[in-house]
């Protein structure tokens, strides 16, 4: 099977879905780029080149460059989704949620309920998350917990190219608004990805590594850091089971509980800030529904309760590291009542 990067996997999913269904359009700032310049049209293909080449195949009616006005992009995509298109709208950095949240959470997410079940809003919002690129406080956040907390939105947070392709195709074919969170440091990460289209259902966690001693629930880039930590810990005789929920809404509660019932210990790793996030959500779930199975209190490894810093030394401290993950695992393993 061919190896593909997450960038290629997403591009391939978009191209295949656009070929299959003429209602699928890509819309956003610089999704092609170069409009009304003396230079090359399609010079960008998205700020990190994810949509590159779609313009050449599908043209400006379906690869739609917009002004840098996120409310108009999200609102137009929501309105188009409710009236017959299946837009994949790009919110370049998830931080820009700040300027367009109304159109996402008061409009798109609520149509179906407010209108008594009559609306369908097949909208996908692709957006970048993650720190580690020296982009500081307004271009580095991981805000999937905000999307996850909104009834009416679904939220996807893939950690590898295989999942990214299958989950994006699923998102495009889904009839509800889906936010698809891509980690900006992972686009070049490769794995085997089939050429043909395939779907991965939402709400099904992946068991990334099996183990007896501790369950680690991790998302996106933190799955890879957890794998690194697990290798170190294995040499110490601690076997970690790593669960990647892949979608935070819906969340595979059963998959997480099953693993904790098996290991009796839980560490949750989340690149987002600690308050009201996925780590808290999953810890509460386990405390509520698997309390009897727990041999130690659930431990959370998250970013600190601060904005994302600029200086590389500080940014490194901000992001949960394999070392911190390993430390948390050792703590729960050593715990005695």
């Amino acid at each position, binding site marked *: 099977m061919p190896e593909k990067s997450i960038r290629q996997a997403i591009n391939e999913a978009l191209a295949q879905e656009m070929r299959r269904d003429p209602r699928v359009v890509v819309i956003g700032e610089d999704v092609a780029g170069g409009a009304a310049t003396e230079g090359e049209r399609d010079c960008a293909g998205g700020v990190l080149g994810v949509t590159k080449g779609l313009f050449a195949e599908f043209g400006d009616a379906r690869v739609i460059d917009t002004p840098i006005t996120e409310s*108009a992009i999200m609102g137009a995509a*929501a309105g188009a989704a409710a009236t017959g298109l299946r837009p994949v709208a790009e919110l370049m950095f998830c931080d820009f949620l700040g300027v367009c949240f109304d*159109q996402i959470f008061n409009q798109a997410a609520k149509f*179906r309920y407010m209108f008594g079940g009559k609306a369908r809003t097949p909208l996908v919002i692709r957006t970048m998350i993650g720190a580690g690129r020296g982009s500081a406080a307004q271009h580095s956040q991981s805000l999937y917990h905000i999307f996850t907390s909104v009834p009416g939105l679904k939220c996807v947070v893939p950690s590898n190219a295989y999942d990214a392709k299958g989950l994006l195709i699923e998102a495009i074919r889904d009839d509800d608004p889906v936010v698809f969170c891509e980690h900006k440091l992972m686009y070049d990460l490769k794995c085997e990805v089939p050429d043909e289209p395939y779907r991965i259902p939402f709400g099904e966690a992946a068991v990334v590594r099996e183990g007896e001693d501790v369950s680690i629930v991790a998302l996106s880039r933190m799955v890879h850091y957890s794998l690194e930590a697990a290798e170190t810990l294995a040499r110490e005789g601690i076997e970690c089971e790593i669960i990647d929920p892949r979608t935070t809404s819906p969340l595979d509660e059963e998959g997480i509980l099953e693993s904790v019932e098996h290991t009796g210990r839980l560490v949750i790793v989340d690149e987002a800030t600690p308050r009201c996030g996925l780590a808290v959500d999953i810890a509460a779930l386990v405390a509520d529904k698997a309390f009897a199975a727990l041999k130690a209190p659930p431990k959370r490894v998250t970013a600190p309760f601060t904005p994302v810093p600029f200086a590389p030394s500080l940014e490194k401290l901000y992001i949960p590291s394999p070392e911190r993950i390993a430390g948390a695992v050792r703590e729960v393993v050593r715990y005695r009542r």
Partner: protein
Amino acid sequence: MQLSRDTLLKAYRQMSTIRHFEERVQEEFAKGGIPGFVHLYAGEEASAVGTCLHLSPQDYIASTHRGHGHSIAKGCDVERMMLEIFGRKEGLCGGKGGSMHIADLGQGMLGANGIVGGAPPLAVGAALSAKTLGKGTVAVAFTGDGGSSQGTTFEALNLAVVLRLPVIFVFENNEYGESTGWRYHVGSGDIAARAAGFGLPAVKVNGDDFFAVHEAAGEAIARAREGKGPSAIEIETVRFFGHHSGDAQRYRSREAVVKLRGERDCIKNFRTRVTEASLLEKSDLDGIDDEVASLIDRAVAQARAAPPPEDGALLTDVYVSY
């Protein structure tokens, strides 16, 4: 343009329906039984009806918090609207939307909207669907003078021009954003001119004159259908009630409201115009008023007696599937 007798009768019936509906909702709200609050459209009927008469159910409109008039003009079922406003199971949205979220996608009504400036980007989206899928339809964004200053509205105007979309922005300037006068909150003092600054044709029309609205909307909508892009219309209108039902309206006197009702009533003006020109008889119009009054009586009686949604409805319709 000379309108046919049927069109004139239809226009009058719709305006009369809106007026009766709103006057009655005000009464019923005061009596109790309507949850939340309502924003009434009485006084602005010519705007919704003069515009929507040019639209088919396949065309879309997106509306405001003051959306009852737009809904009626776009063909929403009046009895089911009343049921919705009372929060009933058989309401247009199953009692889950209420006055501020009345929608009927089957009639091309993309929803009233509780967010000022919420609708223009959505209408731009409906126009994007129309253009991309080659449907030949148009979309209309209704916005008030208040919403005309929202960033979402500016972004929507610009995107519509950039993508040359078949969308019409109708700004209903009823002179007040809640309790603040429009001459204060619209900094430039000219909504149409500001819209024109985005690079689209924009005109100002007298909303007390149904025929002026109908003509201006007709031109803008025809232009959009021909693929010539977006337009804007500022409609100078009045609201007979306050911002919401129960607004003490300390920003204007009772006498001023009486004067508005006397001098700036688009329905009275319509009656005068068509009867003086012998286009319709007074008896035609009175007959319609009587029919509309019974329709509204029936709608209210039915809504008062109707059951609320079942408890299970709390948890349904969040997603298509989850």
